């Protein structure tokens, strides 16, 4: 392909068309504003102010820290724990009020305890919210114990933990558990916790004199680390003991309190807690004992009794004068008394909490007087009534009592001839008891009757436990009774044997004569029918038919019903105790004030 290049040479001219001029001319711009656009309303904006920090009102409560005492200590080796347990006095496990199951290794015990959850509750008499929260916010009792150096020698029952939780925060409380449920252990454990938490420093425990050694043993068992001082001995020694600061727990008996009162007043002692055992002792608010106890300077007041009502609601009012003065009085409606009483009282019965306890079988042994007894009885009654009628307006309850006692003694055994239908019946029953290898307790209100029984029942090798037996010999008697198979029988007076003993190896209880008060009878029966009872407990109550015993029995039944109504139904009569009218009514007598309207 060939490419040729040509040169082009020709001119090009511009013609004046005017178009180029137009291009060089500056443009003319006119701006026209439209007023209507500027008047458009802008869109509305709603603003929300979001607070990042809301003011929240709070309440704060600061509590005192647990003292050093509650800190856990290094665990003892299991062998050491077991050894320590075994070294404890035998008597404390045998005859004390201990009411728990068998000992457990500490590890098992802690596991068992940890499974339950018992919370402290603020009592009604604690009003300040901070104080109430202090109790609400405490750990469970089980955690408190498992997390501390405090040990239990035996596994407490759940209801016992509840009892401790009831007492712990209470300033005024009645622990009114039925006998045998372990009021002592619950009180000691609550005291132990309060001492260890630093809430208490000085405690006074007052009990009947025969029970002082029991309390000492129980403290050794349940709170061995707490030093206790028994107020006893001569005056100088006692005065020193009252001042003893090293022992946070002082144990005194009611009688000593009376004797040492001037000293206590002079020294101005104050107790963080006063505990009354067998608090029915102060049921009569006019008694000297009651007045002294009420005057004890104290912060907390606890009462332990299985029988806050023995005769009438006045008994309960008497106890309340000590623990919560003025909260109940005789003029209050019954329902209100009952409601207030329940706020301060914890009452459990065996039926309620010990479903595994062997049954108690009551048997009324109604006997007919022997002809000789009948003759003596009729003669005594006739003479007695004539004598009482002759007294006219000078007759007193004491005169009637004397006749009652005389007639009851005839029912037990005829003093002229020595015959006794009761004794014959008892002997027959005891043959059966002894043959079965079981053991029995016989209660009477008279040592004289017990002496007669001892003489007539020698073939059972009976042991005696009553007011004439020296205190020092009593524990050894109980040991013999328990361990020696030849002694199948123990004769006890209600006064000496009704309280504080643990004889659950006995399966038979005989009430040879009847006490005036059913609560005392219950206490006696519960020596055998209690936690740890080997088997069913048979209770035989002797009543001589058509005698004063049968009439008294009727009144006792009514009293028992009263107690049940106050603490179980909340409805009660004001007074169904053995009133003057009732005592006179036993013989259809007239009181000095007029005729008896209510015969027995």
């Amino acid at each position, binding site marked *: 392909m060939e490419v040729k290049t040509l040169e082009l040479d020709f001119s090009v001219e511009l013609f004046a068309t005017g178009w180029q001029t137009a291009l060089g001319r500056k443009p003319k711009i006119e701006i026209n504003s439209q007023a209507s656009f500027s008047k458009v309303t802008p869109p509305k904006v709603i603003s929300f102010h979001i607070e990042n920090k809301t003011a929240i009102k*709070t309440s704060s409560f600061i*509590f005192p820290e*647990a003292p050093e005492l509650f800190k856990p200590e290094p665990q003892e080796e299991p062998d050491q724990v077991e050894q320590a347990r075994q070294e404890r006095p035998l008597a404390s496990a045998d005859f004390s009020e201990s009411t728990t199951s068998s000992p457990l290794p500490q590890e098992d015990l802690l596991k068992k305890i940890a499974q339950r959850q018992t*919370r402290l509750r603020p009592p009604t008499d604690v009003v300040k919210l901070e104080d109430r929260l202090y109790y609400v916010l405490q750990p469970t009792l089980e955690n408190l114990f498992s997390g501390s150096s405090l040990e239990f020698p035996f596994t407490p029952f759940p209801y016992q933990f509840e009892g401790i939780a009831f007492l712990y925060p209470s300033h005024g409380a009645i622990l009114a558990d039925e006998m045998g449920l372990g009021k002592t252990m619950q009180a000691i454990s609550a005291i132990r916790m309060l001492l260890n938490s630093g809430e208490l420093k000085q405690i006074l425990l007052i009990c009947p004199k025969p029970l002082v050694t029991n309390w000492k043993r129980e403290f050794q068992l349940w709170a061995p680390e707490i030093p206790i001082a028994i107020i006893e001995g001569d005056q100088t020694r006692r005065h020193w003991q009252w001042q003893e600061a090293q022992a946070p727990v002082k144990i005194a008996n009611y009688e000593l309190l009376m004797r040492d009162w001037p000293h206590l007043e002079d020294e101005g002692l104050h107790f963080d807690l006063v505990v009354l055992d067998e608090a029915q002792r102060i049921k009569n608010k006019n008694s000297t004992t009651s007045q002294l106890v009420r005057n004890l300077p104290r912060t907390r007041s606890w009462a332990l009794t299985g029988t806050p009502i023995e005769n009438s609601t006045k008994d309960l009012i008497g106890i309340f004068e000590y623990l919560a003065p003025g909260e109940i009085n005789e003029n209050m409606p019954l329902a209100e008394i009952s409601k207030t009483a329940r706020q301060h009282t914890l009452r459990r019965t065996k039926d309620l909490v010990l479903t595994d306890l062997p049954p108690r079988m009551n048997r009324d042994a109604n006997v007919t007087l022997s002809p000789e007894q009948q003759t003596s009885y009729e003669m005594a009654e006739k003479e007695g009534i004539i004598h009482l009628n002759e007294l006219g307006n000078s007759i007193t309850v004491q005169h009637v009592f004397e006749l009652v006692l005389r007639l009851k003694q005839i029912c037990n055994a005829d003093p002229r001839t020595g015959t006794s239908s009761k004794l014959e019946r008892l002997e027959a029953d005891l043959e059966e008891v002894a043959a079965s290898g079981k053991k029995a307790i016989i209660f009477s209100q008279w040592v004289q009757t017990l002496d007669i029984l001892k003489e007539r029942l020698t073939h059972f090798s009976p042991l005696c436990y009553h007011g004439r037996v020296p205190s020092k010999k009593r524990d050894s008697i109980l040991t013999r009774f328990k361990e020696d198979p030849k002694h199948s029988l123990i004769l006890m007076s209600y006064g000496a044997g009704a309280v504080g003993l643990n004889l659950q190896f006995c399966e038979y209880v005989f009430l040879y004569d009847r006490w005036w008060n059913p609560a005392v009878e219950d206490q006696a029966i519960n020596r055998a029918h209690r936690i740890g009872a080997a088997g069913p407990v048979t209770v035989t109550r002797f009543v001589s038919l058509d005698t004063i015993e049968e009439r008294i029995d009727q009144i006792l039944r009514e009293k028992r019903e009263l107690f049940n109504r106050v603490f179980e139904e909340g409805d009660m009569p004001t007074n169904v105790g053995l009133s003057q009218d009732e005592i006179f009514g036993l013989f259809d007598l007239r009181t000095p004030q007029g005729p008896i309207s209510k015969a027995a």
Partner: protein
Amino acid sequence: MNTPTTNTPKILGFLTVIQDAQQRLFGGYLLLNHLGRPLEFHCTAPVKANRAQEILYGSTIKPFLYGEQIAKTLFEKSKNKVSLVVTDLVDVLPVRLYTQVPVCLTKSSISQDPQTDQEAALENSPEKGLALNTQPEPPPSYRGDLFENKSQNIPPTSTTTSLTFAPSPGKTSVAPTEKQPSQFDHLPSFPIAGNTIYLSPDNLADRQGICQILDELGNDFDLGEPFQRIQEAIEEAQKGV
């Protein structure tokens, strides 16, 4: 309970929120010493979200109220320095954003369901106390859960309990409105000293410190139990209102 191995006794804080029948929230913060005894208790007056907050916070309202508002307020009230804060509510965990103290989750004894098989397996595993059990599909992140992931499934009342005031003091009046395990299961957990601990995925590094503290306290310290005390204390406080 074993003796602590250090000279400084640990103080634990227990923080929870309770909802009553009127949907009011009550915060409670209980400080316990190493023996489980109370040192401090702080509680709030009733708190209730207003309508605007409900709309604006949406599904994050509960972490906001529980963690940022109530828990943070209570936390700031304490006088004692705590070693560990324990809660029984997932929605309280955000309080960890405001403190250097580890915050962990456990199941309250008042609303605790029977132990799941999974927990039992964990506690019985040979790696007990060693391995951190991370779930196969954990949520994207703690922060994402609460503030980004709108589809997070936290039932509106699942973390609270109804507050009623029963006349009988011995009985707990609390009934959980919904079972808790559903809100726990997505969290990493590990068993220690008789308790199962749940952690926020954002704070897995807290585990070592928590283990050390709980080891010192021993096996008898039930971390779920104090929530019952808080519950009862709030009820008690409300009685006087």
